């Protein structure tokens, strides 16, 4: 069988001040026509670098230091920029991760399509327009002719990714490189997009390389899979074979780290193959420690009680009231979270789950409704001091560990700030002692205190965020998608840490996620949200085994196919 693309012993180096860094080390893969190859690995594995070096769009100063890339029988790794440009688009199409940012926001999609068509197919403007309509139709965009004059921001995320796919197909290429094509999308849309890529691959007899960190995606779409770790190819073969009988240790641990939606386990399987997964230090006598000394004297069974809560956001301002449009982000929601419980909130993006969390945390003011925390109405303006005392018992951990830490403060300053602000220690030596305890409590060495956030990986940063949240001695922890920006193996570590903390400090937890398997492992009870409303609240196992609401059934149906690699 003649291969469409053959990569032999490819090496890519990034020169840096500390010498050469080999991002890709002697990787050999091949792709045939009509075949989907999955390239899987965690962040920093070098999988995107392989994709970028095929079309010679490596970020400088990276360069190909060895090996050869053969496309359609000819070497393409030594072509000049101008020769390579003619291959891009026309022979090899590319799809990038984030449809929000991969389209030019100031140009209509019709113009971006015709521009590409004119360049790659050398056709006239009017026939380019016809071809553009045809393309939009083939990627499943309704009313393609009317949509040509729309700007990217007028499309939803999934539709935008369809436009990106249409653009990648514009030059009628033979090979498509899709770099994390569904990572930024909701599960339901992820499935549609993967189905689309798969069917286009079969229809047009394309070779497809899917670069992803998500084993679920691989199971869904790929024919063959290549696993990368630390710049090297550790294993490749047919999907069923690799996922069911992984040979390499890394592949095994990668697969076992994927949280299961089928049954509840006590702990997440930890991948010991990953660097920097520090062990958590268990504090002796937690109940005597500073961390536990702020518990309320009065105990309430209900930690958080929300009644008929609503908030609206204005999406169009106008002079006259009737022309104004607003969106009900949270619409008449009532929930009760018991003390010590782990309560899950699940839904797709735009369902209002983060808004609800922010309302409870006091970051937004609701339009109507009541919020009671430990029996105290925090919306009453008359008892401001009491309210701020209560609010202190509640801390948030955010999704993006990169933007939620101040990059100009040392870790020590970040963690000690809430302590100093609340004056919750006797003196500064006690503060630094507490900070040292906190950082080792979340599994990081005390030497990290003098460093700045950019010196840490995503998982380590999330640990710092957790330590910062603990520094206020919270009783309620609100976690807003705490691991969705992290790799699976790191995710398992962070989730285990959160579980342990919850047990040791008997915290109440509000856990928000779009990821059903994670919710199943983490939560006692779950609320399913859609369009600002709660569809269903039930025990976690109940929900997964017998969902009542139609929407819950729909969501559960979208979980990645675990059967493929869990026999």
């Amino acid at each position: 069988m003649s291969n469409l693309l053959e990569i032999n012993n490819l090496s890519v180096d990034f020169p840096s001040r500390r010498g050469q860094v080999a991002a890709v080390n002697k990787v050999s893969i091949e792709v045939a026509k009509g075949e989907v190859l999955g390239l899987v690995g965690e962040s920093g594995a070098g999988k995107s670098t392989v994709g970028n070096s095929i079309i010679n769009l490596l970020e400088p100063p990276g360069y190909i230091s060895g090996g050869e890339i053969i496309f359609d029988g000819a070497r393409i790794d030594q072509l000049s920029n101008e020769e390579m440009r003619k291959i891009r688009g026309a022979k090899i199409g590319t799809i990038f991760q984030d449809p929000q940012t991969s389209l030019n926001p100031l140009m209509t999609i019709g113009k971006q399509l015709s521009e590409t068509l004119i360049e790659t197919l050398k056709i006239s403007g009017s026939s380019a327009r016809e071809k553009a309509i045809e393309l939009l139709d083939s990627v499943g965009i309704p009313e393609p002719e009317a949509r040509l004059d729309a700007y990217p921001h007028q499309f939803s995320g999934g539709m935008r990714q369809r436009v990106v796919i249409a653009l990648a197909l514009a030059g009628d290429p033979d090979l498509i490189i899709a770099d994390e094509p569904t990572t930024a999308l909701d599960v339901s849309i992820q499935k549609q997009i993967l189905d689309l890529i798969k069917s286009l691959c079969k229809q047009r007899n394309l070779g497809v390389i899917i670069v992803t960190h998500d084993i679920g995606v691989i199971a869904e779409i790929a024919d063959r899979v290549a696993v990368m770790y630390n710049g090297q190819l550790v294993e490749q073969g047919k999907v069923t074979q690799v996922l069911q009988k992984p040979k390499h240790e890394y592949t095994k641990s990668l697969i076992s780290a994927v949280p299961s939606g089928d049954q509840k386990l006590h702990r997440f399987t930890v991948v010991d193959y990953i660097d920097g997964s520090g062990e958590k230090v268990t504090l002796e006598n937690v109940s005597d420690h500073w961390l536990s000394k702020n518990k309320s004297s009065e105990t309430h069974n209900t930690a958080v009680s929300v009644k008929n809560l609503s908030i609206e956001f204005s999406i169009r301002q106008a002079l006259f009231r009737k022309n104004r449009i607003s969106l009900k982000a949270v619409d008449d929601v009532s929930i009760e979270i018991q003390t010590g419980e782990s309560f899950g909130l699940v839904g797709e993006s735009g369902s209002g789950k983060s808004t609800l969390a922010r309302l409870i945390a006091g970051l937004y003011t609701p339009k109507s409704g009541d919020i009671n925390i430990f029996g105290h109405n925090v919306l009453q303006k008359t008892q401001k001091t009491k309210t701020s005392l209560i609010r202190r018992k509640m801390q948030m951990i955010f999704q993006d560990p990169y933007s939620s830490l101040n990059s100009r403060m040392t870790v020590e300053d970040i963690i000690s700030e809430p302590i100093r602000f609340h004056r919750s220690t006797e003196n500064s030596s006690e503060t630094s002692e507490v900070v040292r305890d906190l950082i080792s409590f979340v599994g990081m060495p005390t030497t990290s205190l003098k460093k700045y956030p950019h010196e840490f990986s995503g998982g380590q940063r999330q640990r710092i965020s957790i330590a910062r949240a603990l520094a206020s001695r919270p009783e309620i922890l609100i976690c807003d998608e705490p691991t969705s920006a992290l790799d699976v193996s790191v995710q398992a570590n962070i989730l285990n840490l959160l579980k342990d903390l919850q047990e040791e400090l008997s915290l109440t937890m509000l856990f928000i996620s779009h990821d059903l398997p994670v919710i199943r492992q983490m939560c006692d009870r779950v609320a399913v949200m859609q369009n600002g409303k709660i569809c269903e609240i039930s025990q976690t196992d109940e929900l997964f085994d017998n969902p009542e609401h139609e929407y819950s059934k729909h969501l559960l149906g979208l979980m990645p196919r675990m059967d493929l690699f869990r026999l």
Partner: protein
Amino acid sequence: MFYFILNRLAQALLVMAVVSAISFSLFNFVGDPVNNMVGQDATREQRIEIRQQLGLDDPILVQYQRFMLNVAQGDFGLSYRIKQPVSQLILERLPATLELVFASAIIAVFIGIVLGVFTGIRRYSWVSKIIMSVSLIGVSLPTFIIGIGLIYLFAVYLRWLPSSGRAGVIEVGGWKTSLLTVDGWRSIILPAITLSLFQLTMILRLVRAEMLEVMRSDYIKFARARGLANRAIHFGHALRNTLVPVITIIGLNIGGLIAYSVITETVFQWPGTGLMFIQAVDFVDVPIMAAYLIFVALLFVVINLIVDILYFVVDPRIRRGGS
């Protein structure tokens, strides 16, 4: 969009009201105009008569009301020194200033954007490095030194261009222009360059910084991956995306050009409103100062309004609710 513009117009009116109140207060706080108007040997009766003529004995609020009514009709009173209507004086001088500002704005915007794009794309070439070093001079040297330097080089040493004044003025439909004659062009070159230099370097550095930012973005990478030519990427995709912040700065800076023109007009003896303002300050000619203040404020407000509307044209994301 309609709501937005109405909102901005209301803000503009508020700004103008505050500025006019400040310029009215000039009349009461900057010296005694009567002293400036009559000689040392004027009698007490003469002074009282002038005070009455000018209405300076009326209550403040009455004076303010009268001032505002007149201003609304374009009447800024008589110049204390020249005894002519201020509005007429400004209108006579305005073409000179506007032509100077226009010429230097064109130089600053055109050269600034071209060089900014170039240095943004060819970041590491030695030409870019030279441009960036030279541009430091434009930012750091004060306008009058550049003006004097240019006069010395081109007017005194090389004798290519005139050193000062506005030559070759002809009148077209009531507008006195110097842009239609060779002499006029020769005399506007040096002041226009002097005035534009600071703005030019600002725009250059801003466009370069924005270009560097935009060239790193995903849609540029995606455009490359689709095989588009460099020219289409740089000018079709990248440049337009740099424009929103650039328009803001250009808008503010055109106001700045008018403000800075005071210095340039003085150095080159350019007969515009800036020079008139400096002379008015020398003689405490309050009506001219007040009118100039209102005039500059009006320009700033109008330019800002135009900038806001330009956002709508450039960036479809701001056109919410439209189409």
